[in-house]
């Protein structure tokens, strides 16, 4: 009886280690993106509502004066930058530069947001590994 109980405990412990040992999942945490063309309150409201319905988006704040969307994402999201830019384009506006905070894999030259597959060339002093970085994405990427 005692042996069987110990075996169960050991099994559970190994399972916990196994789960913990899985690589951390990369994802965007926050995106601030410049949007050109929003000239009115309804424009801003429309694009914020449309982006806000994307899977994994927790909240969207919009500034008409700055032409800025500030997006906070939920843990476990798989949002891709290309999908976000398409949403903005579908509303008749143009997304430009973005500043993102994301968790992902950094190898010293390239940062991969593994949850969605987006990757960026970065020059950062961070050590390689799973890191949380804030960086700018120019319009072209």
């Amino acid at each position, binding site marked *: 009886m005692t042996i069987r109980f110990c075996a169960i405990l050991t099994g559970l412990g190994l399972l916990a280690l196994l789960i913990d040992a899985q690589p951390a999942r990369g994802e965007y945490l926050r995106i601030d993106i*410049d949007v*050109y*063309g*929003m*000239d*009115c*309150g*309804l*424009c*801003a*409201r*429309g*694009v*914020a*509502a*449309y*982006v*806000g*319905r994307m*899977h994994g988006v927790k909240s969207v704040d*919009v*500034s*008409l*004066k*700055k*032409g800025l969307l500030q997006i906070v994402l939920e843990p476990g999201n798989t949002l891709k930058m290309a999908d976000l830019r398409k949403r903005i*384009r*579908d*509303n*008749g*506006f*143009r997304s430009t530069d973005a500043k993102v905070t994301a968790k992902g894999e950094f190898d010293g030259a390239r940062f991969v947001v593994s949850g969605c597959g987006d990757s960026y060339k970065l020059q950062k002093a961070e050590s390689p590994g799973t890191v949380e970085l804030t960086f700018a994405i120019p319009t072209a990427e």
Partner: protein
Amino acid sequence: MVRLSQLLVAFACLALSPPLWADGNGPVFGYSTATLGVGDIGVGTDVMWRGGVAMLAPEFTFGWKPNLQLSISAPFHLDHGDHPTGRFMAFSPGDPQVEALLGWRFFHSSSGIGTRNEATVYAGVSALTQDVPRADGPPLQRQPGTYGALAAGHVTRRYDVWIGGGYQHYFRWTSNVVDHQSDSLLSSLVLGWRPSFLNKDSPKPDVRFFWETTAEKVGLAQRGLSPASGGGHDHDGPPPSPDANGIVTLPNSGGTGVFSGPTFLMTYKNVALQGGILLPLLDQPNGIQTHERIRAAGGFTYYFLGRRK
């Protein structure tokens, strides 16, 4: 003239109607470009007043594709006075009919924060819903019509400029009906301005003022001399002579006009309120029709935004 009860009906319709449409850029009478996002819906109504006759114009607009917008409007009479003919608003027929209008934004450039240049071409079809009373005889047996328009604009957070023009044409599709409602050409220039003290950030109310100028040329209507039509008599003087086909060109129809005046657009959350007046700079009817001293329109609108997942 509009009676009090009819005005009450109009305002009751406004108050009780389901959430309503507007076009996002604001001109009340003039042309602007299509602006709804994909999946966005606007439902709304305008009250239009012209030459002593009031109309209510329910409208529905849908953002079909990023640059494709469908709208349906169906203005109808609130009274039965002698009604001026011809289109006087860019996105709503001037007579009782239902019109479906497809707008394609074929040029679009967002060049800065709050700044856009864009152009849209519109094509529409319309069908009669109510007879239009005429002072010179019974209502014309009107046929379906088509409408084509072009609009272009430069929009910023501080000012807007819109220009556009459109042509409404009515067919003679039924062989035994020769009545023909006046075709009309409408053009507009709209200057918009958002004063600094109203240049607030979202989600505060967004208010803009416009100065709209419209120019129109309305053609002559024609009537067949069939027993059903009742002939082509006139207010004063002898009836006009029919041509070889028995068609009378009605002298007291059509004309030329230029109207100009202030309008506004206020949006807050998903609601838009807009309204304004136009005053005549030039009003030259072809005949003895009553001159228009003022044109007025006002509307309450509502948007369903970001519905699509």
